[in-house]
């Protein structure tokens, strides 16, 4: 990065944060601080919902996913539009009608205090842990590639987001997210056009897509019924529906984005905006990764995309092994380029039989380079069992730094930081709100009438969670697989939390005690399935299914427990103990 890149990066990021903090510095009403401005329209709500969901890792990992495995990951989002319809029709009107600050406050009104605390507690644990990762995961990648200091990057981005989130609360979060999304869109569109312009003459977008398709990178839809396959239409629609319903309907970091706003109509249209845009947007990001894959078919391609890690080992005691692998990969890569030329010639010749044969040879050549890449990862692990071998996260950022012109590099790094700040701000805002409303105010009900004190407490809690996230990111010493584990953690808890809410909405006869113990039983079942999956191959299915199983188990067990506790149900259902 040169001075121009730094001007673009700091100008956009610090400028947006300063604008957000300055514009919202007089926010001292609790309602505005926690729910946002009463004049917020659907477009801002929609962008805010989008920015909270799309973290920096979305823009680092998803192109890498497209590069490595193709665009099939898009199926993960197939349940999202359907879930948002349900949130618009059922969840949102009720939250607004009751005027609650958090979704867990609703549980308290419907059931009792312990169910409210269970929901809020699960959220604080899960989102509090994830908050550290939201900062750490992109920082480690950016620092490795750009040579920045990890601790300063974590502290710098963490403090920046704390300043405007604490100052202006929900209003500042929505306001800054709007501009951050603008930077993200500008950056990704620029990257797409620069990438296409760098293809060899005559290839163009269509030729690149045909090559990506020939090498299996554009299999967007898989109708297979095999439950062991991680991303299929079915796991996407059913598992994804429950995951999205839980995330958008019950997770406070999302609920807070749409619960305020000018009216129910504006909140609903903000969600509809996401329902229409999310799948095409994710597909475009994945496609970008698949096109980066095509770009590297015509360039010298690294055997391992985390170059810093690779070069560290190549310069070490067993460097000869790594250099030999690099040479082998380069030779096979050149051979593959020859096969690509033969396949293109066969296509242009219009002979289907020749094209099929050339394509088979190309696929075999691609498999040979993939095998060397796998060998390279094994060599890294043999040298250092703790070595990070998942290099797909480094593909896009390495491409940006090595191939894009100055200014655009700064803009694309700004995309990553903007995404990190946007999602982080949404999380801190929600953690601060839940701590204030569901813990502090729940245990100190007399303080509820002192509005200024409530705002002050909310600010302190928001700052606390910000500092906690920075500390966690600095000192937790994440292993690579922990980051993935925390992503899977969402699916482990989300199903059960959704089950509690669905019982609240649709099973009127079930009371607080039944749903509380039903949730505990369902969560135990999910833990058992998760921890026994390696011992019993039958249980080794896609983690998306945990959402459906957890939700169904929670609802069924709540009904059964309620049937066994007939005397308590009547009293519970009448009472409001929140």
């Amino acid at each position, binding site marked *: 990065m040169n001075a121009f890149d730094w001007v673009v990066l700091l100008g956009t990021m610090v400028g947006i944060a300063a604008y957000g903090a300055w514009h919202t510095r007089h926010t001292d009403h609790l309602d505005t601080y926690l729910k946002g401005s009463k004049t917020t329209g659907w477009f801002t709500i929609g962008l805010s919902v989008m920015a909270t969901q799309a973290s920096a890792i979305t823009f680092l990992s998803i192109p890498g996913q497209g590069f490595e495995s193709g665009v099939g990951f898009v199926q993960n989002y197939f349940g999202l*539009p359907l879930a948002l319809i349900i949130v618009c*029709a059922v969840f949102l009107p009720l939250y607004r009608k009751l005027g609650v600050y958090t979704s867990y406050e609703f549980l308290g009104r419907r059931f009792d205090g312990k169910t409210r605390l269970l929901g809020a507690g699960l959220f604080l644990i899960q989102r509090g842990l994830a908050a550290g990762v939201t900062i750490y995961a992109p920082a480690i990648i950016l620092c490795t590639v750009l040579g920045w200091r990890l601790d300063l990057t974590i502290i710098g981005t963490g403090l920046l987001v704390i300043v405007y989130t604490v100052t202006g609360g929900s209003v500042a979060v929505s306001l800054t997210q709007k501009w951050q999304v603008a930077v993200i869109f500008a950056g990704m569109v620029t990257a797409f056009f620069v990438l296409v312009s760098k293809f060899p003459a005559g290839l163009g977008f269509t030729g690149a897509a045909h090559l*990506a398709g020939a090498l299996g990178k554009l299999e967007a*839809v898989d109708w297979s019924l095999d439950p062991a396959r991680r991303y299929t239409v079915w796991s996407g629609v059913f598992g994804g529906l429950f995951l999205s319903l839980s995330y958008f309907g019950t997770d406070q970091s999302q609920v807070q984005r749409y619960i305020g706003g000018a009216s*129910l109509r504006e909140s609903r249209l903000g969600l509809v905006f996401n329902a*229409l845009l999310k799948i095409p947007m994710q597909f475009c990001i994945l496609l970008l990764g698949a096109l980066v894959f095509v770009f590297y078919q015509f360039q010298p391609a690294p055997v391992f995309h985390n170059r810093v890690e690779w070069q560290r080992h190549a310069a070490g005691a067993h460097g000869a092994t790594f250099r030999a692998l690099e040479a082998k990969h380069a030779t096979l890569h050149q051979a593959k380029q020859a096969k690509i030329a033969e396949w293109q010639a066969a296509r242009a010749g219009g002979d289907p039989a020749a094209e099929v044969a050339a394509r088979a040879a190309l696929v075999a050549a691609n498999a040979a380079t993939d095998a060397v890449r796998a060998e390279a990862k094994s060599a890294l692990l043999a040298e250092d069992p703790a070595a990070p071998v998942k290099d797909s996260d480094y593909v896009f950022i390495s491409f940006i730094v090595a191939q894009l012109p100055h200014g655009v590099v700064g803009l694309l790094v700004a995309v990553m930081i903007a995404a990190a700040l946007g999602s982080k701000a949404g999380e801190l805002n929600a953690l601060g709100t839940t701590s204030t409303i569901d813990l502090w105010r729940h245990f100190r009900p007399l303080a509820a009438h002192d509005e200024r004190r409530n705002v002050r407490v909310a600010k302190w809690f928001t700052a606390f969670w910000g500092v906690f996230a920075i500390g966690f990111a600095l000192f937790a010493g994440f292993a690579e697989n922990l980051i993935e584990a925390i992503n899977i953690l969402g699916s482990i808890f989300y199903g059960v939390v959704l089950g509690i809410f669905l019982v609240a909405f649709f099973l*009127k006869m079930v009371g607080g005690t039944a749903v509380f113990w039903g949730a505990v039983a369902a969560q135990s079942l999910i833990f058992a399935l998760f921890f026994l999956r390696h011992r019993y191959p039958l249980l080794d299915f896609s983690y998306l299914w945990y959402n459906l199983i957890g939700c169904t188990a929670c609802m069924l067990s709540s009904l059964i427990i309620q049937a066994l506790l007939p005397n308590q149900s009547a009293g519970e259902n009448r009472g409001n103990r929140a």
Partner: protein
Amino acid sequence: MAQPPEVKPADPDASPGLPWPRTWRGVYLLVFGCFLLVVGALTLFARFFA
């Protein structure tokens, strides 16, 4: 003691204040239709470039 909140889906025939569709039910059908269209388009895209 207060009663627990009454849980009732909002009226799907209420107007969303748009020129079209005229009801929220229509908006939801539009979202669902667009979803089917996108899945169909992705299937065709994958087949075309396979």
